[in-house]
């Protein structure tokens, strides 16, 4: 009976999303804020939207004034409740305090905003473009459908059941009348075969020189690249590799929370990535993205790595994004060598390099990584 309210709610959500759009840049810089809900829903905090009005500020209670009033037993000094920043007053308008409000958005919506904000080109998937196929199969029954799909047997059975249960069935005069609600029709399901699928392989140098803050930054960047790629590829998969002088495949949590003191051999991660690609993600069928975070203090002269990139990893992948954090110990030679290499290689377009010092670098790095349209 109140049809308007759904419209109002929609409007409210649109306004909230507008806020997200407006504050997207700040939001991106903010770390660890987002909560996932299922596979393609994301909860995003936005400041509560309230209409301003003149109110009295909170004043410190003076002598003989109270912060609040309660009711019940207890003696002086008994604890009532913990103090909070944002105390819910006893005032008649409690609940109007500005707080945070979570808005639910789909990956697609968020990606669209991100694309608009950072002016990202859409990705053109490589390889043969298989058209989106719809798989149709009859499967199961439903209560509505076209006459041509009506199935007599189940419909008849239903009618029979109904008559017996209501006691109207007469075995001597077995006339079965099939009513519309007894009718059963064939139903079908559609199955999408993904147009193109993609995998992201994340590689992280956990050799101790990557601090917590840097990891957090890496994570923030990964979140957004993930959103962007997820919007372009159905069924995006992720692989996480950590390495020091040796590489191993880990889950997402371990990836962002491991810290080992040890050496750094980037080649070990490259080898593992190659192994994973060869065994699970055939480059003909998959769009492969490599994201690598390191402080760049690689052991050795970086020649093996570059050869590996030139001959194996870059040809197989869409993109390799390398972000180097500033190391307090070394000079980060790896980035310089890659820069030199990218000047000469024919695969230059597939290699994206970025330097990551602090939060301010998050946005430009995302833009660099995703700005290639690959």
């Amino acid at each position: 009976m109140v049809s308007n309210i759904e419209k109002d709610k929609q409007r409210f959500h649109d306004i909230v999303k507008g806020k997200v759009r407006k504050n997207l840049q700040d939001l991106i810089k903010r770390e660890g804020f987002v909560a996932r809900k299922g596979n393609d829903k994301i909860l995003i905090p936005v400041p509560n939207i309230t209409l301003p009005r003149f109110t009295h500020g909170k004043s410190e209670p003076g002598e003989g004034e109270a912060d609040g009033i309660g009711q019940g037993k207890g003696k002086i000094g008994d604890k009532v409740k913990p103090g909070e920043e944002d105390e819910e007053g006893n005032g008649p308008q409690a609940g109007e305090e500005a707080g945070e409000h979570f808005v639910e958005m789909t990956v697609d919506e968020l990606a669209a905003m991100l694309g608009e904000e950072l002016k990202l080109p859409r990705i053109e998937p490589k390889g043969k473009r298989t058209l989106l196929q719809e798989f149709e199969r009859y499967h199961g029954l439903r209560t509505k459908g076209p006459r041509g799909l009506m199935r007599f047997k189940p419909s008849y059975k239903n009618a029979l059941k109904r008559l017996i249960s209501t006691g109207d069935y007469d075995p001597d005069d077995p006339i079965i009348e099939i009513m519309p609600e007894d009718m059963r029709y064939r139903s079908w399901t559609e199955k999408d075969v993904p147009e193109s699928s993609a995998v992201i392989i994340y590689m992280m140098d956990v050799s101790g020189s990557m601090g917590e803050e840097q990891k957090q930054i890496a994570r923030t960047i990964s979140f957004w690249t993930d959103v962007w790629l997820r919007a372009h590829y159905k069924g995006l998969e992720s692989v996480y590799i950590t390495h020091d002088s040796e590489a191993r495949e880990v889950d997402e949590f371990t990836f962002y929370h491991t810290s080992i003191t040890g050496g750094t051999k980037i080649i070990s991660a490259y080898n593992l990535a190659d192994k994973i690609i060869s065994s699970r993600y055939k480059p003909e069928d998959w769009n492969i993205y490599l994201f690598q975070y390191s402080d760049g203090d690689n052991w050795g002269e970086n020649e093996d790595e570059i050869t590996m990139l030139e001959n194996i990893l870059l040809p197989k992948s869409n993109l390799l994004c390398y972000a180097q954090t500033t190391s307090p110990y070394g000079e980060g030679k790896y980035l310089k060598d890659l820069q030199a290499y990218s000047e000469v290689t024919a695969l230059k377009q597939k290699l994206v390099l970025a330097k990551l010092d602090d939060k301010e670098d998050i946005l430009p790095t995302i833009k660099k990584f995703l700005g290639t349209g690959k």
Partner: protein
Amino acid sequence: MHYTLRNDLEAMRAEAEKAAHECGLDFYNTKFYVLDFEALTAVIANIGFPVRYSHWRFGMEYDQFEKKMAHGMQRIYELVINNDPSTAYLLEYNNPVQQKMVMAHVYGHVDFFKNNVMFQKTNRNMMNAAADHAKLIEKHRLKLGIDKVEEFIDACLSLEDLIDPCMRENKKQSCGKNCEGKCDGGCSKNEGEPKEEDNPIIKIDKYMEQFLDMSKFRAKKEECEKPCQKQERPERDIFRFLMTEGKHLADWQKDILSIVRDEAYYFLPQRQTKIMNEGWATFWHDYMMIQKGLAGDQGIVDYSKTMADVVSKAAGFNPYRLGYELYKDIKERWDKGRHGRDYLEEQDSEKKASWDTHEGLGTKKIFEVRASLDDAEFLREHLTDEFIEKEQFFEYNLDMRDNWYKISGRDPRVIRNHLINMLTNDPIIHVEDANFNNAGHLIMNHVHTGMELEPQMRDRTLRQLFHIWQKPVHLRTIVEDNPVIVTYTGSEFSVKKAK
């Protein structure tokens, strides 16, 4: 929505109505509707009106309420609309005993709406008015675009509190002049009740005049056109001020100002009497359920459980409980004659405790109280020290050392003041002049009552006001103990020391 209640519910309703009559309650005819969860939530978001104008704020409230209900953080049994006939919504899933309790409760509310002094001037046809408002705003939205209209509504809603609580009268502005109260409603036609004498406001050809007695009409008209005298007291109703002084405002903007104003005046008395109103309804549903036997022998346990929730102390401070217990206390005091000088001046505490003159005026007294007071007065007059002690009120303060709120005392004076301040804490702001600096600026005055305005909200609200006024707006107030004028010019804020 079916108007006819299910048979069993209708029987309960008749029973509750009969009991309410026997209790001496005096109420409007009340229609009950049974709604499911979703529909009730939707109605609540519209604050009870089945049709209300479209605005995102209601969507937001709906959204938040829905979530709270879904998480079981909120329980709601009913909703009553102050209207004649009144309308009440019941939740489908209440059990029969709860339904009965709720119906009895509703009759208590309706009696309160009908008889409390604060409600004497409210529009008893607000449900229809709200639907008309919805239609009008929808028309403007379609014509001018949602954004434009919504922005203006937003701005008006920010000023919602700036109405005159003492003006318990909500007259329409129709003569265009500020003659409220002077021409005695003759020119300001109240919507919905056109007065017969007003009808001659039609075009009459000159020649007809000799046949008609126009003297009465002319006298009225002249009175209306007479320039108003300087206001005796400062204007608190900013909407009235904007509608008369805002010469630049388009008709649609005046429509919206007037709608927001009407609804604000309609809801004002409900905000001012929440404790009294809920207390009254709770007092009577309890009386009817137990004394009048509505709960029945079977239902008494269920009823007691529900009632314990309603008046629980667990939440720390429960306004429902406060009102309910206060009426009970007043009834007892007037039944036993525990009031007046003799009782108050009695020093012997034992004598005081067993004081009973068999005066028996309790019921009469509470009816009188419900008719004549608002919440603040209610507490000021009837929240006695003994009551505060009996109800185990305490004050608590934040202990900085471990960031815990701790009980800091049980001083009745502090507790009473705190409760009353909570109710009267809205800033008082007057409109002073529409031609400040002789440049058409708007200036308002914040009447300082010991508290300063929250600066962020203050500035955001001034910005909203600018959206309506379209010229610089000023506010006299106090910032860090200095009198200042805060100004928003449309592009920037400034705070200057006041002369």
